């Protein structure tokens, strides 16, 4: 409670400070908009540029992308360690659940946007590989004593597997995050079926109807124009393709919500300072989670973009929500 009081007061002081600065510059102040707790777009008379939220700060839209880039540039090296420390390893469970809900078959093409260090793409390839192995083992078990005819048939089908190879494309706007991901791929020895592309979620560098599955895990809240990102997702998906989004959301249980807030605002920036040496980036992270719309509102946004059968699943009591929709 003290935390939220202080944040409100901080916003008030920022507002009054802006009044002082802006009044000195002789431009009419953008008053009132800063008080809105939900994400607001307010218009200033003089400049005509729109503003959006960066955590609890209000910044011009053009600046948000730059500042988000800087945040992830700074945290890229320690990103995975911090994820483990902050979520106590639970983020791995969330990502595994995304894969299980996805249940990809061999031969599908995945686009992982804001995929950065490649967690989803690696899991995707691993899932398909283990599924294929399980199928092979089952087939082998059912054919304990194959005839020569069967063996020669198997050799020919192995060649046909090549065009069925699944491919994952990891797309991220931040080169540092992609670098870390590429390094991880090299360390794990994964070479085939993976590509790394620099791209903006609001303007993807891909043609229409390219991918079977589009995922964005813990990335969409950093996008300046979420509706544009959703429209791009619709565009690059094939008809019948699936949109899946993992994102921090509103906790339903009030007791858990209190604990979650206290943990977020007290512990996470401290962890950021101690492990990554960067308090402000992790302060931004917990604030941006609060600014992101809740489950129902986001479901509405996905439907507005043109997806059908939009559903969401709450994970860990609503800390994370998995949204899914289809392009039909």
């Amino acid at each position, binding site marked *: 409670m*003290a935390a939220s009081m202080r944040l409100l007061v*901080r916003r008030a002081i920022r507002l009054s400070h802006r009044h002082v600065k802006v009044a000195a510059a002789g431009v009419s102040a953008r008053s009132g908009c800063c008080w809105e707790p939900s994400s607001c777009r307010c218009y200033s008379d003089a400049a005509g540029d729109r503003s959006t939220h960066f955590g609890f700060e209000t910044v011009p839209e053009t600046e948000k992308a730059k500042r988000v880039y800087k945040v992830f540039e700074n945290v890229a090296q320690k990103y995975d360690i911090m994820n483990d420390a902050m979520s106590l390893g639970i983020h791995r469970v969330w990502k595994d659940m995304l894969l299980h809900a996805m249940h990809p078959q061999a031969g599908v093409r995945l686009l992982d946007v804001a995929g950065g260090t490649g967690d989803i793409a690696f899991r995707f390839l691993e899932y398909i590989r283990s599924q294929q192995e399980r199928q092979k083992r089952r087939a082998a078990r059912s054919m304990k004593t194959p005839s020569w005819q069967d063996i020669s048939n198997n050799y020919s089908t192995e060649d046909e597997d090549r065009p069925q190879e699944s491919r994952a494309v990891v797309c991220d706007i931040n080169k540092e995050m992609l670098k870390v991901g590429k390094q991880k791929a090299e360390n794990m020895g994964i070479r085939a079926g993976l590509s790394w592309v620099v791209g903006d979620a609001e303007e993807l560098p891909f043609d229409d109807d390219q991918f079977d599955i589009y995922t964005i895990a813990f990335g969409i809240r950093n996008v300046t124009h979420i509706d544009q990102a959703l429209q791009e997702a619709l565009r690059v998906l094939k008809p019948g393709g699936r949109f899946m989004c993992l994102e921090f959301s509103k906790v339903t249980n009030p007791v858990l919500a209190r604990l979650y807030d206290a943990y977020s605002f007290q512990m996470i920036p401290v962890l950021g300072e101690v492990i990554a*040496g960067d308090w402000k980036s992790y302060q931004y992270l917990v604030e941006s989670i609060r600014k992101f719309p809740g489950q129902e509102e986001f479901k509405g946004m996905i439907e507005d973009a043109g997806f059908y059968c939009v559903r969401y699943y709450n994970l860990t009591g609503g800390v994370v929500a998995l949204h899914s929709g289809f392009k039909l």
Partner: protein
Amino acid sequence: MWLHVAKPFHRFSQRQCVLLSKAVCPHRLHLSTTQFTDAFYDGLYPGHIHTTPIQKALLALGSGVAALQNPYRHDMVAVLGETTGHLALIKLRDRMRNDPEGYSVLTERPRIRLSTLDLSKMASLPDGSFGREYFRFLEDNHVTPDSRAEVKFVDNEELAYVMQRYREVHDLLHTLLGMPTNMLGEVAVKWFEAAQTGLPMCALGAVLGPFRLNASRLQLLFTSLGPWALQNGQRSRCILSIFYERRWEQSLEDLRQELNIEPPPVILSATKKKSN
């Protein structure tokens, strides 16, 4: 029952309101321009981050563990110093206020960084002068005055400056004491600082530093360097109160006498490889 809980919250947030309203009128005149990467800062001074007592406790614990695990993480040592040094900083600030030169340091707020130092002028000073010896120290040990972290977690603007001054004076102290930046020299300086300032971070460094020394150096520390450092730390004038920027031409011996510091009992040379 809730009233009892609510009242301190109310007072706490009121106090924060007062602190934050002070932030609206920035103390820009005192700080150097290089700190102004963003003209708008949230807090009492550029780089200030508000922290609750819980966060400070967690930071102290975390930074202590991190610094012990990896002593090269100077930012963790800095954070440990900031989160545990409140009382010691108050004492230091009061000592500075009671000293006329220290008072002028507190009001004028000089900063020691490459942009404010004139290194070529210092190099041309005569041997034995404070400026020349400081320049020699910087060269021999391959250090630069710009490697100090900014203060982030001290919730008082004046105390934050005292902390910053302490960090920047550290190298000058090496020169005054004649200690190089190897492990033994650093431990000796830490013992002096612990005796002088009483900062818990210095005390921790003073206690744990010797564990990384070999037997011969430990002997040197405990027999001659250590007692010398402790005694001089206690009896010397407050080292933060000196306006070093005006004393580059002064002879080093003269300055030592003025500060009541004996010359070191053992001459240590800067080792070729950096072993901090």
